[in-house]
């Protein structure tokens, strides 16, 4: 089965600083999803990456998938307190292997704290 390892497990940064969160897969990624979760709330979709070398940005958050499709990074520029939360990466299974493209395997998450 596919396993996702996220690093770091937790991160504390000062407001305005840049940061990067990594997600490494034990197998080739066919679809990599980034979600954000705040305590007591559901997961909020950030971005999905599918192609090797792909990069997507939304506001101050940029996600990349490496060429080999086994590692993804999430970069936040000029962090703000509103960025605080748990960031989760999730991967779907390749079709044809019995997997559904919506049966996601998640990492354990990275807890981000942004101090004002």
């Amino acid at each position, binding site marked *: 089965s596919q396993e*996702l390892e996220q690093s770091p497990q937790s991160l504390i940064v000062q407001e305005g600083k840049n940061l990067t969160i990594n997600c490494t897969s034990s197998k080739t990624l066919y*679809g990599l*999803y980034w*979600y954000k979760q705040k305590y*007591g*709330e*559901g*997961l*909020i*979709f950030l971005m*999905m990456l599918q192609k090797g070398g792909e990069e997507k940005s939304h506001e101050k958050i940029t996600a990349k998938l490496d060429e080999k499709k086994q590692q993804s990074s999430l970069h936040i520029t000029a962090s703000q307190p509103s960025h605080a939360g748990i960031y*989760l990466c*999730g991967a*779907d299974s390749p079709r044809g292997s019995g997997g*559904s*493209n*919506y*049966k*996601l*395997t*998640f*990492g*354990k*998450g990275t807890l981000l704290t942004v101090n004002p």
Partner: protein
Amino acid sequence: GAGVSQTPSNKVTEKGKYVELRCDPISGHTALYWYRQSLGQGPEFLIYFQGTGAADDSGLPNDRFFAVRPEGSVSTLKIQRTERGDSAVYLCASSSPSGGTGELFFGEGSRLTVL
């Protein structure tokens, strides 16, 4: 409402009791998913519905867990003879039939505590 709605938000029960958790997906979303999230872990897949039928229930941990979606909209996750290890947040998600970005829309979850 506009989003996925889950009830109850919190449920405390005693070991051995039966519980039901309800999920009301976004209107028009044919796909519905249940995930379970234990403390300090990422969500784990339980079951996926396409319409009224369970297309994939491979994540249900054992036969004490069962889920239904009789009219293709609201779903109920049922847990019999609850055990302390069942304590977790149960998350429901839905997605649009067109697929789009592949985004799953999650509810806020039902926190289950088994004493």
